[in-house]
């Protein structure tokens, strides 16, 4: 009997890739997709890497596919935007070795800047999409995705969502099946997408999609679960589980292939039940197509486009009430915060003191937007901090940005910040850009990148020197400074924001959660010396709270000993003691 174990959705996806004989995977970390690469890196048979961004990762997977091996790229939904340039044309070239792109959507915004629906992108790019509903299916669908990819000569997207990616359920393991490498043969009409070839491939794309839509009628991933003929659901992914929870006896058309759709299958299902609900998270992708075929269903007029679905949501629509028996109590919010000992806090304390606005970016440091630090004014997408600040300067003049800086993390800078910085050099910017270099990709859980000196497999490698990189592209003034040296940092920031010379300030201090990065001491408050001035509370460290008499206390189990609070105390009421 096959071995059964419990696996995170992302672990099951990695396992599926392994069992499918995948030889290469390239990815950029992004919640909720990150762990796929980390689990896959454990298999010696698979080459895995972190790429600087999702466009690069996808292109690496494309090259591997062209050469004739099964390849994989993984990313979160917004990563697919970065990768959409290669994606749209990869749909034209098709594959040699099977190619799958795993894209993790984040309905409910657990850790993202928007709630976009990957199925919309896939429809417009004409790429098939499989959507599993638990860890077992996540593994099985990966293998099916490679079969579809090779059978139909197309990249395939495996779409997951946060709840699937980060839930654990039982999985039966199988052995890896080694797939023979395919021969590569030069084929300009297929692999060189200049107009003359692409015109021909567009025909192929449409034919292929029609063929798959027709075959989808009998694909094993689509199934009808015949039940009550009064009420039926068309559903897929995690939403299927809510339907089974609430209406175990209803008829269900469970779609594993959500693009393209089988018209015949849907027509048959809808004619066999009286009322059909389309229960899909985010956009009405299935619903609109079904309606366009003239079939009457209930969809977004009853169920929201926003956030994650739930069994209670379905109950409220069907029965007018849910399971709740107690009222919710209004309690103070507990938003995420920078960790005790985080070097970003030190940088932001300086910007806050100087009343400087920060054009922000994507990472832990986005949390600098909230009180009490409150210095980050904007956050749009990876790399936007630098280019948006440039737009402000060119729009309103250089004096307008004298109290502005851009802040961007080391990993994000290498992702898409560096090309923004090239623009600043080229177009004569006077801005101040701060690279908050904490030697890791922090928010997603500490992944290495091109400047850390370690690969995804844990091997030693070259480490890009960020300062030298900035100088090499022509930044006239590059300064490196210890992130915790607040006095020096204050002087540098004042000087560079006032000057008309484009300056990059690299603030250096490793993420405090990295192994071996603990400070030797912890901070301790001295009640007698405390004058209740509140200066130390302004840095927003969660280890510092007030006693009932207004003096402060420091939770030593939480404190990481960075000493930032001590540097802001004028009364020597905080000391550092040996841990």
């Amino acid at each position, binding site marked *: 009997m096959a071995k059964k174990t419990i696996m995170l959705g992302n672990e099951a996806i990695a396992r599926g890739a392994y069992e499918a004989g995948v030889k290469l995977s390239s990815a950029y970390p992004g*919640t*909720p997709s990150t762990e796929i690469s980390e689990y896959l890196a454990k298999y010696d048979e698979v080459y895995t890497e972190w790429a600087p961004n999702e466009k690069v990762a996808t292109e690496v997977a494309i090259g591997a596919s062209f050469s004739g091996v099964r390849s994989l790229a993984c990313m979160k939904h917004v990563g697919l935007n970065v990768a959409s340039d290669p994606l749209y044309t990869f749909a034209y070239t098709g594959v040699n070795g099977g190619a799958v792109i795993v894209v993790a959507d984040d309905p409910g915004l*657990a850790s993202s800047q928007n709630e976009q629906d990957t199925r919309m992108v896939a429809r417009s790019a004409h790429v098939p999409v499989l959507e599993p509903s638990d860890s077992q299916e996540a593994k099985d669908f990966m293998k099916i995705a490679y079969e579809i990819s090779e059978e139909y000569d197309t990249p395939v997207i495996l779409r997951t969502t946060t709840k699937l990616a*980060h839930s654990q359920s039982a999985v039966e393991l199988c052995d890896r099946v080694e797939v023979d490498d395919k021969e590569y043969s030069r084929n300009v009409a297929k692999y060189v997408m200049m107009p003359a070839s692409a015109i021909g491939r567009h025909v192929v794309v449409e034919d292929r999609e029609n063929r798959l839509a027709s075959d989808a009628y009998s694909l094993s991933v689509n199934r009808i679960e015949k039940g009550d003929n009064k009420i039926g659901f068309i559903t897929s992914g995690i939403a299927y589980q809510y339907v089974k929870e609430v209406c175990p006896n209803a008829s269900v058309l469970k779609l594993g292939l959500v693009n393209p759709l089988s018209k015949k299958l849907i027509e048959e299902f809808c004619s066999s039940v009286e009322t059909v609900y389309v229960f899909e998270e985010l956009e009405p992708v299935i619903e609109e197509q079904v309606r366009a075929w003239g079939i009457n269903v209930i969809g977004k007029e009853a169920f929201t486009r926003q956030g994650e679905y*739930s069994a209670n949501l379905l109950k409220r629509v069907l029965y007018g009430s849910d399971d709740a028996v107690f009222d919710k109590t209004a309690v*103070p919010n*507990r938003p995420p915060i920078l960790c005790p000992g985080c070097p970003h806090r030190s940088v932001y304390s300086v910007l806050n003191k100087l009343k400087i606005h920060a054009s922000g970016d994507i990472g832990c440091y986005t949390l600098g937007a909230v009180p009490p630090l409150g210095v980050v004014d904007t956050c749009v997408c990876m790399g936007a901090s630098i280019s948006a600040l440039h737009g402000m300067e060119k729009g309103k003049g250089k004096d307008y940005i004298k109290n502005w800086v851009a802040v961007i993390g080391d990993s994000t800078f290498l992702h898409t910040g560096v090309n923004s910085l090239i623009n600043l050099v080229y177009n004569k910017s006077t801005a101040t850009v701060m690279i908050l270099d904490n030697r890791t990709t922090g*928010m997603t859980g500490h992944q290495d990148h091109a400047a850390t000196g370690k690969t995804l497999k844990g091997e030693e490698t070259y480490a890009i020197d960020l300062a030298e990189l900035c100088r090499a592209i022509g930044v006239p003034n590059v300064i490196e400074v210890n992130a915790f040296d607040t006095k020096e940092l204050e002087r540098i920031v004042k000087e560079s924001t006032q000057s008309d010379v484009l300056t990059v300030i690299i603030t250096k201090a490793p993420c405090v959660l990295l192994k071996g990065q603990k400070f030797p001491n912890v901070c301790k408050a001295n009640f007698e010396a405390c004058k209740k001035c509140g200066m130390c509370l302004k840095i927003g460290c969660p280890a510092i709270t007030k006693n009932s008499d207004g003096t402060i206390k420091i939770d030593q189990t939480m404190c990481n000993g960075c000493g930032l609070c001590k540097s802001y105390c004028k009364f020597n009421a905080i000391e550092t003691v040996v841990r």
Partner: protein
Amino acid sequence: MTKNIMIVGVGGQGTLLTSRIIGKVALEGGYDVKISEVHGMAQRGGSVVTFVRYGEKVSEPVVEEGQADVIIAFERLEALRYAHFLKKDGVLIVNDCRIDPMTVVIGAMEYPEGILEELKNKHTLYSIDGQKIALELGNSKVLNSVVLGFAAPYIGFGKDAWLSVVEATVPPKTIEINKKAFAYGYEAER
């Protein structure tokens, strides 16, 4: 019948590991199990909730309002935030500790007084000072095992089933102290 367990706390308190231990115990007890976790931004000191569901066949991976048989809260305010997820006869286990959210630290909101008393009026509640016990045992990090041990009798499976999973899950160097902490919590007065 599916059993629904919720673990709530503050990011960094170890709710993830706790939910994985509960899931493993249920799996070894022969049940179908689903666990839902939180990764990414919310882990940075925010309010964190994880779910474990087990039974003959489990569909959805999350526990919703009105469905929780047991809630294990690692912090008082988080207990109050999620108590309405309990079933009518659900049990609330609270680690009696206070961690001020930033909204309280900066004075924008007040940390409610008398949380345990208020919750006791509505629910079956048992509380324990896990920190104090963990420190007495010599390692503040075994707090999770103390609280999990305290909660385990309300979930079932028997002490030995738990201890063997704790042994297989925690870092090798900390097996003994974690087992001791679990046993202490399991047998603690309530």
